[in-house]
């Protein structure tokens, strides 16, 4: 039987730091992995299908042999994985709002950016796990990063930077759009052309001039070029710099916007 008579009064403890609050939200993301391991399927099924289909169906025609194509394709599919992952993070945010969970957070005296910092911690974990799975499958199929472990580690650091920057787009969408499915629809409608009109799948040399002009400045292409360079050991500082333009710009523009939208909601 309910017996709240036994419950002690509890005074408020000393206020926690913003960092400690953010880590609590990160812990929440880790718990979700434990309770809902299925979410990993959402994250890796599409890139796995893409890797298999493109390598074995188109690979021979596009690059002479599936093995050669995989060598070209794998760094790019990692970029695609992380960019698509960010959509799910926006969906999660939208779900939390719909369920009223954020009402609870907002009536607590906590640092108002903490929930977003926590989401980012969760995202970084998701990006790492999904990236590892795709890389492992690539290695099994015969992909070999010429730059070795250090190159791969560098590529993963860049990958996290990309995920962090692109993540803001979908946090803003998650705040603006009412339902999680709309976040997903909008997200993929916007992302599919950006992903396909890039150098992830094919070398843009055979594209018409107007399209090639776009593909060459598409941030996804710039990211992919740097990823390939890092994993092959041929990267230049300029390539890394160009890959980071979009993530840095998105963070600078959208992080404050996220806060404004959140406060106004």
């Amino acid at each position, binding site marked *: 039987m309910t017996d709240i008579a*036994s419950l002690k009064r509890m005074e*408020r403890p000393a206020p926690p730091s913003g960092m400690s609050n953010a880590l609590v939200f990160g812990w929440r993301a880790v*718990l979700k992995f434990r309770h809902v391991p299925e979410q990993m399927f959402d994250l890796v099924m599409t890139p796995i299908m893409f890797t298999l289909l493109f390598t074995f169906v188109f690979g021979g025609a596009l690059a002479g042999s599936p093995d050669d194509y995989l060598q070209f394709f794998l760094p790019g599919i990692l970029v695609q994985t992380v960019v698509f992952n960010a959509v799910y993070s926006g969906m999660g945010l939208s779900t939390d709002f719909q*369920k009223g969970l954020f009402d609870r957070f907002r009536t*607590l005296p906590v640092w108002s950016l903490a929930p977003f910092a926590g989401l980012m911690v969760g995202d970084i974990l998701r990006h790492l796990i999904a990236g590892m799975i795709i890389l492992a499958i690539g290695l099994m199929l015969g992909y070999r990063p010429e730059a070795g472990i250090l190159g791969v580690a560098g590529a993963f650091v860049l990958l996290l930077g990309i995920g962090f920057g692109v993540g803001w787009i979908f946090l803003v969408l998650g705040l603006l759009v009412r339902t999680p499915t709309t976040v997903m629809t909008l997200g993929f409608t916007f992302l599919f052309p950006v992903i396909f009109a890039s150098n992830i799948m094919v070398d843009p040399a055979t594209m018409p001039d107007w399209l090639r002009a776009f593909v060459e400045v598409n941030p996804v292409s710039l990211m992919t070029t740097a990823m390939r360079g890092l994993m092959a050991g041929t990267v230049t500082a300029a390539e890394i710099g160009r890959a980071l333009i979009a993530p840095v710009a998105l963070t600078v523009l959208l992080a404050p916007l996220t806060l404004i939208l959140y406060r106004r909601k």
Partner: protein
Amino acid sequence: MTDGPSILAPDDPAIRVRGLARSFGATQAVAGIDLDVPRGMIFAILGPNGAGKTTLLRMLATLLEPDGGEATVMGHDLRRAPHAVRGAIAMTGQFASLDEDLTGRENLIMLSRLWGFGRRAARERAADLLAAFDLADAANRQVQDYSGGMRRRLDIAASLIVTPGVLFLDEPTTGLDPSARQKVWRLIRRLAASGVTILLTTQYLEEADQLAARIAVIDHGRKIAEGTSRELKAATGSGFLHVTLADAAELEQAAGMLAARLGASVQHGAQGAVLSVMAGSPEAASAALSDLIGAGIGLADFSMGTPTLDEVFFALTGGSDAPAEEAAQ
């Protein structure tokens, strides 16, 4: 983000609201409400759907900015020191504000950590709350597997991690079965007995009647009455006579006879040949029924009852409002 000193004098109310207002586009959800809620009291805000109850509560809980007016909660100004207000309140919304993927225990630990408790203190507080709310057996199950009553209890437990000065409960028993509702009522009473001020909203007169020392009735964003349950009922009359006629063709004649005998206006029920009218006493009601039988009007059913929310509204607004219709929208 300074919390500022609490400027609550011993006899200041826990909540003081003056002219609080909020519009959404052209709709005035809350159109200037005044309230004083003394400390340690259970205070109910009674009204139909769309009356502005939730908007009022969300403003007081710092979730929504008011357009006009002012309010203090536990001595902290709502507009100037929202962070300090948050440190003194807790809110349990209409829909459980919990993470459904996490277990009950994990939800409470997460929120305790956000308040600033260390790992160990958070675990202990979570365990104490789970035991006190009869959730210890379900502690390690995901919240999505909880029943409605269990969710509500966990949600209220989550509001008590730090004992709040004021607890806001938005329709705390909507959607619960009668036994779960009884449990939540008992819980609310014990909380108030421990010194927590409780401001709750409800659509049910019975709930306000059972729990609250004072009730404010609101409609269309305005307070239309306030008092103890006894005072409100006195305004509505001691009881209502409900009559169901065997033949709907006799409705007008019967309504006229009831109005003449009881001296009150007669409401037509939402469906069927039902008439409701305020009756001063069982004797007066009996006399009115005799009139109908004497005139040869056939009765399918009749009953005396406490006024329903509709009837309180009818009495308070003189019948210009039809809350039942609004609730259906």
